[in-house]
Every structure is written in structure tokens, then in C-alpha cells.
């Protein structure tokens, strides 16, 4: 990919699906060959899950902070004339 620039900031809450799946695969592979590592992997996975959950919670909190007050009234009053 030459033309597309990815934001230098690492994805936070957006990584939920891909990160969790990758983590599980990693855990499975390790469990076949190194049973003693299982606990650490599981702990890491839990940590990753907790971190993503925290990030999602932070994002939802931020949404609540910026969301217009009196949503019902606001949306009801948003009426446009047709354009084009």
C-alpha cells in the first residue's frame, strides 16, 4: 500500500474484533506445544480484553459528553428544505 496513510495513532476501541481473534489463535498455538505457558497467555488475553473494554467505555463516556442535550427535541427540530 503506497498511497494510503494509516493514522499514526494506534487504533484503540476499533481493534476489538481483530485483536481478540488474533489473541485466541495465539493462545491455541501455544497451548499445543508449551502447556506451561497457557496461564500467561490467558492472563495476557484477559488483560487485552480488559484494556479494550476500558477504551470502549472511555469512548462511550466521551460520546455522552459531546452529545447534544435534549436529543429528542433537537432531532425533532432538525428540518431541512430539500436541496439540489
Amino acid at each position: 500500500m503506497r498511497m494510503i496513510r494509516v493514522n499514526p495513532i494506534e487504533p484503540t476501541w476499533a481493534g476489538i474484533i481483530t485483536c481478540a481473534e488474533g489473541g485466541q489463535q495465539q493462545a491455541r498455538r501455544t497451548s499445543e506445544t508449551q502447556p506451561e505457558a497457557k496461564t500467561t497467555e490467558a492472563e495476557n488475553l484477559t488483560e487485552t480484553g480488559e484494556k479494550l473494554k476500558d477504551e470502549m467505555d472511555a469512548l462511550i463516556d466521551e460520546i455522552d459528553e459531546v452529545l447534544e442535550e435534549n436529543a429528542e427535541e433537537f432531532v425533532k427540530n432538525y428540518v431541512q428544505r430539500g436541496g439540489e
Partner: protein
Amino acid sequence: MALPMIIGSETEYGLTVLNDPEFDSIATALLLVNSYNVDQSLKLLWDYDQEDPLVDARGFELDDDYDVPDQQDNMAINKVLPNGARFYVDHAHPEFSTPECSNVLDLLRYEKAGERILNLSRIGANQVLPSGRSVIIYKNNSDQKGNSYGYHENYLMDRRTPFQSIVEQFTAFLVTRQVFCGAGKVGSENGADYVPYQISQRSDFFETEIGLDTMVKRPIINTRDEPHADRDRYRRLHVIVGDANMSEYTTYLKLGTSMLVLYMIEDGFLTEDLELRNPVRAMQAVSHDPTCKGQIPLKNGKRMTPVDVQWLYHEAAQRYVDHASHLDDSFKTIVEEWGSVLERLADDPMQLHREIDWVMKLHLLTHYMDRRNSDWSDPRTAMMDLQYHDIRPDKGLYHVLERSGAARRVLTEEQIVYSMEEPPEDTRAYFRGQCLKKFKHQIFGVNWDSISFNLGEGPIKRILMEEPTRGTKRHVQHLLDRSETAAELVANITA
């Protein structure tokens, strides 16, 4: 071989005034276009003489009256910017038309620069409103009450391309591209069946397959034949079905794939049988199905998912970019990205929660509803749908996602800021923009294909620019450098 394709987009923004439910939308739009930081002493007209919006690509002309504003109004509602763009009032909305661009990444950066320009106008406008009131601007296409306003793409094509080929080969592409172009919408409107969430803002509003209208009985293929260029050489395809996107990546893919498909149509490269049995019904069915798994009927009796229809176009495009020597490598990147997005759509669309607007919005809404124990009928859900499109960096929900790294970027902030002031270098927009910088007080009128000067004595001198690939930096820099005044410029051109 296809001609180089010049492209542009037009965005009509929705607006409201906080704490003023009685606000006048036309007056507010007018305030906005006059609040951007342009030289207010400038007296230049938008040159409507060159416009012909009632001509139809099928070969006939309507006789409706077309209103041309008087000079005072003309100056108030039209601003031509040094980056080559037009910022104006269209009906009751502020509208931003990008300068002419030669490639997708340029068009993307001008469209995003437009959002920043609207935001600066908003800040300017707020300074003259009574305290407690402020303008809010949305880059979306519907008020959720049956009123839609447009986002239009323009692709300049070879006049020799039969219009019938465009109708037959482009319609199915437009109907199915929604799956990666939609901006997402809570609910349905305009008499459509209820759905809690749908892919496109616009699809409930399309009622016919082909026609000249843009405001009523909207057609999937618009027939306006107004090239703003040499009419014998070019046709400007005016695409009105698209959603205005917030995501840079979605916009990039929408413009890139559309441009590529139109190149293939121009070159007669598409041989696949791609006609839909009922495009209008399919438009709505595709939008109403966020699983992207429902099938739509083709004329040949087959039924296919929208993603599979897109795969047919994609496979042709893959072969096309491998052989078309006139296309640069950026088109190979577009084909790669397109394929990668189609794979994920076929598998699970939610994987595109960093890339595609309708998925980003849906992902946010479902997580919010889950955490706050709310549902589709909660007013906060409709509020979030609207506020996703708020162009304010601190309040817009798309901007919240972008800031937290949850939106895939294509551009840098520097590219966008640069594009607010500087025109593209490789189209006639360069000449327009540079004249606005250097000779602004002598300019009398501007249109896409002309610029005219008032030199103080003698008649107005109009320079025609019927060829949009001329007037580039390479063509005119020397001319601009050796012309100290507008009079010298005109003399040097006519010498």
C-alpha cells in the same frame, strides 16, 4: 483509449441554528458563504452566461425558466476561492464545489478541505449571531423527515461514449456500490418500509431509473448534459445517487472505483451482462440489508448479492488495470483496496468498522446501545446518527472516532490545510486559482470554463477555458510570471 478523466464533487450541507428553532435557512446559508475569510471588497460575478442546466443528454432541451440572479444577489450568493473551488448558496443550503481534479487523492483532499472551509465560515458566522445562538453544519443527506439534499459527483467523459452504454453498464454498479459507499442511516423515510438501520442516506429517495430531475422523482442515472467544457469532446456525467461521506477511506474508494468503472465503459472493456431487473427496487433493497447477503434479480434471470455484482466489476477492473497503459499505479492500489473490502463485506461487514462510514456508525451505535442499555427508539440513537455528520472537530462523532484512532485515514492534516488555499496544479483550476490570487480586483466574472476581466476601459475580456486539462501549472506558470497586471495577462494571451 479513454481521455484523461477530470473529476469533481459538490456537497450540499444541512444546517441548523442552536437555540433558534425559527431560523431562516436561506439567510443562514447566505451568512455562511459571506463569513469565510475571503476579501469582502471583491466584486466578482458567477458567470451564468455559460450555464445550460436544462439540456438533456438524450438530446432534447427543456423550456422551463431558469432563474439567473441579479448582480447584487449574484455576488452575495457566490464565492470563488483561491483554491479554485466555488462556495455558494444553492436553494436553502450552503454548497461547496471542489475545483476540477485529475485524480482521486486530489479530489479527496479538496472535498475534505471543503469541510474545514465550512467550519471556518461557521465560526465567522457565529460572531454576528446573538449570544447563545450558533450555527451547526452537517455533512449528510437527509433530515430524517423526508427531505433530502444532495452530494453530486462529476466525471468528465468522452462525448463519443454512447449514453446507452452508461445506462446499461453503470446502473448496477451504482446500485450495489452502496455496500462500501453508504454513510448509514437510522430508520427509513419517503414511504419506504421500516428498518431500524440502513446502509445509505439517499436510497429511499430514488424513484426512477433515468431522468433530468435532481429534486423530485430522483433518477439513478441523471441525464443533465452540461459539460462546462468543449461540448463536442466531452460529456460530464453527473452522479446524484451518492451519500456525502465523512470517512476519507470511504470517499477514496467511492471515487476511485467509480472512476475506474467509467474508464472501462469508455473503452468498451465491460462485456459482462450486468443489467438489473428493477434497479429502483434493488437500490432500496440493498440499502435496507446491512448483512449484504440478500440477493437482487438481474435481467438475465440470475439472482446475486450486491457484493457478487461488485466482484464482477472488480474482476474486469483487475484485468483492465493490468493492460491499460494510460493508467498509473494508483489504480492498481484502488483495485487492491476494493477487493480487500469486498472480501470483508462477504465475510462479515462489521470488520470494516474503521473504513466504511455505515459500518463505523453502526458499530458505534450498537456498542453505545449495549453499554447504555438503550435501543433504536431512544432519541439519543437518532441524535448520534445526525451528530456523526457534525463537521465541528470537537463535537462531531466522526471526529471523535478519528481522534481516537478508530477511523482509517488516507490524508494527512497538512495535505488538507494546504488544499484550502492552493489550487490543483494539473487542471484549469490552477489558472483560475492563481488569477484569483494575483489579479482579484480586475476579475469581473468566473465560471468553470471561463474567467473574465474588467480592465477599466473597453469591453469585458473573457478568457474561455473549454479544455479542462489546459491552464495547468506547466502551461501557464510562465505566462503568469511575466504578467504583472491583468491587462498584461490579457495582452500576453491574445498576442
